[in-house]
């Protein structure tokens, strides 16, 4: 997904700009990431091009999915002790509320780390953390 030098830099500095800049899809949807101690909070600022339903208006469900999926991959890359690139196997996504035209936040949790497979839970919210707009889980294959 990205080169080792960028990953090393991100890990050492907590500055995600280079890592994000190296992934075109992250720029396409406008993903951002902030580090608070050990915690990572992923952000997707409001963007007209990310809208789906024009009536509400609401963010396209696919964009919410892509944002959560990419957040999980970046989270997993940084959670590894060694440098291993995660490859997504599958992704299960529940839409709980409409994603309105404002910033989305996401946080990830490593549910299970095996030798070759990792299971990550992702929660996304907007106004209030206690009212998630979507929850997801993903399996990743880790390769050397």
């Amino acid at each position, binding site marked *: 997904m990205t080169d080792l030098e960028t990953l090393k830099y991100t890990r050492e500095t907590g500055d995600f700009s280079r890592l994000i800049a190296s992934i075109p899809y992250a720029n396409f949807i406008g993903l951002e990431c902030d580090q608070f101690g050990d915690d990572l909070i992923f952000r997707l600022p409001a963007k007209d091009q990310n809208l789906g339903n024009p009536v509400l208006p609401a963010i396209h469900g696919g964009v919410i999915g892509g944002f959560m999926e990419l957040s999980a991959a970046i989270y997993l890359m940084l959670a590894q002790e060694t440098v291993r690139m995660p490859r997504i196997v*599958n992704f299960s996504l529940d839409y709980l509320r409409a994603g309105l035209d404002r910033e989305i936040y996401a946080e990830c949790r490593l549910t299970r780390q095996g030798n070759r497979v990792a299971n990550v839970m992702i929660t996304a919210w907007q106004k209030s953390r206690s009212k998630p707009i979507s929850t997801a889980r993903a399996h990743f294959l880790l390769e050397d």
Partner: protein
Amino acid sequence: MDDRIRADRVTRFIQTLNQAVELGLTVTETTDRSLTLCLPYSDRIIGNPVTGVIHGGAITTLMDTTSGSLMLCALDVFELCPTLDLRVDYMRPAEPHKPVYARAEIHRLTRNIIFTRCEAYQDHGETVANCVGTFMRIGPQALPQAYREKITGGPV
């Protein structure tokens, strides 16, 4: 309703979805139970800059849009059906520089829920991803009349 009308409705509908326009999604085929959309290759949606493989998120959006627009083909009256859940299995990376197609089918249609199955594939026919989805029927009255007429091309 014939396939020409279905294709026109779906085209008008996806043109109102900013993200679908941004990705350049187009209608490939419609029937009364299925819909195929095409996602053209673009450097902007690459997930792995080393291999040029597009990100799974673009494929998720393609399959969500295809499954969610299927209702325009299957229902005479236009209803917007929000996605309840999606389950995506990635079979293999999409080959770079080639479009990805998604073909969605109605698996079962009930009064409240629509169950869909969707397959993403490329020209040589190999499956890139599979997607199972459920969509909630909230009824046609949930949408403003003007928007419905814009999609159906007149009063329905």
